[in-house]
C-alpha cells in the first residue's frame, strides 16, 4: 500500500511537470492516470518503504552521492574524449571481475549505473548470489579481483550503503 502511494505521488509530480504550467483540467486527468498506474504496478515499485523515512539518507544522497557522481561523470567524458582524439588510440580493454558487498536491488542498480558513467568502465553483468559484477574496462590497470575492486567500486560503495541499505 505504501509503495502504491509513493508511486502515485511521484507519477503525479512527473505528470504536472510534463504539463507545466498546471491547470485544473490537466491536474484532474493526472490524478486519474497516476491512480491507475499506481494501482496496476505499485507493488513492483518499492520493496522496503521504511527506507524512505530517514532524512539522513536524503542528505547523503544529495550532498555526498550527487557531487561525487557529477565529478566522476565529467572526468569520464574528458577521459573518453582524450582517448578518442589521440592519434594512437591508447586503449587496453578487457572484462574484469569486481566484488561488492551491497545487497538490495536499488543499491546494486545505482552501483551498476554509477560504474557505467564513471571513467573507463561499463558494467556488463551481475551475479547477485556471489556479489560479483563483471565490468568492461577500457584501460585495464589491474586484472586481480581485489585491486580492480579497490579502483572501481570503492568510490561509490560506502556512500551507496549509507543511502540505500
Amino acid at each position: 500500500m505504501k509503495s502504491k502511494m509513493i508511486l502515485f505521488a511521484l507519477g503525479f509530480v512527473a505528470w504536472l511537470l510534463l504539463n507545466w504550467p498546471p491547470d485544473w483540467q490537466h491536474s484532474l486527468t493526472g490524478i486519474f492516470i497516476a491512480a491507475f498506474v499506481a494501482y496496476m504496478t505499485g507493488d513492483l515499485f518499492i520493496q522496503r518503504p521504511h527506507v524512505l523515512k530517514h532524512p539522513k539518507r536524503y542528505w547523503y544522497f544529495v550532498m555526498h552521492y550527487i557531487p561525487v557522481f557529477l565529478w566522476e561523470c565529467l572526468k569520464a567524458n574528458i577521459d573518453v574524449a582524450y582517448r578518442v582524439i589521440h592519434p594512437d588510440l591508447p586503449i587496453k580493454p578487457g572484462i574484469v571481475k569486481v566484488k561488492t558487498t551491497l545487497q538490495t536491488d536499488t543499491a546494486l542498480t545505482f552501483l551498476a549505473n554509477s560504474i557505467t558513467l564513471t571513467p573507463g568502465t561499463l558494467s556488463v553483468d551481475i551475479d547477485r548470489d556471489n556479489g560479483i559484477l563483471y565490468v568492461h574496462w577500457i584501460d585495464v590497470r589491474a586484472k586481480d579481483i581485489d585491486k580492480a575492486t579497490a579502483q572501481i567500486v570503492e568510490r561509490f560503495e560506502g556512500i551507496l550503503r549509507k543511502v540505500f541499505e
Partner: protein
Amino acid sequence: MIIDVIGLIFIVIGFAFDVFGCLGLVRLPDVYNRLQAATKCVTLGTCSILFGTFLVVGFIAAGMKCLLCMIFLLLTSPVAAHAIARGAHRSGVKLWEGSVVDKYAEDKEGEA
C-alpha cells in the same frame, strides 16, 4: 542576460561532448568500447544541452520538460548500455583482439 550566456556555454560544451562520442563510435574497435564512448559522452553531452536550454528558456513548459528528460536520460541510458553489452556477450560477440583479459567468458564457459 548573463544566464543566457551561461546556458549557451552549457549547450556548446554539450555539443562538443556529443561530437566526441560520435567520433568514438567510429574510431573505437569493438562493440564494448563503442558503447563506452556512446554512453558516457552522449549522456552527459545531451544532459548538458538540455540543462543549457533550461537556463535559456527558464521555468516554462519546455524548460520543465528539459529537466524531466535529464533525469530519465541519466536513469535509463546506463541500463540500456548494460543490456546491450550483456546481450552482445551472450550472443557470442568477441572482444577486440587487443583485449587483455575476459573474466566473463572464463566464468560463463560451462553455461552457454
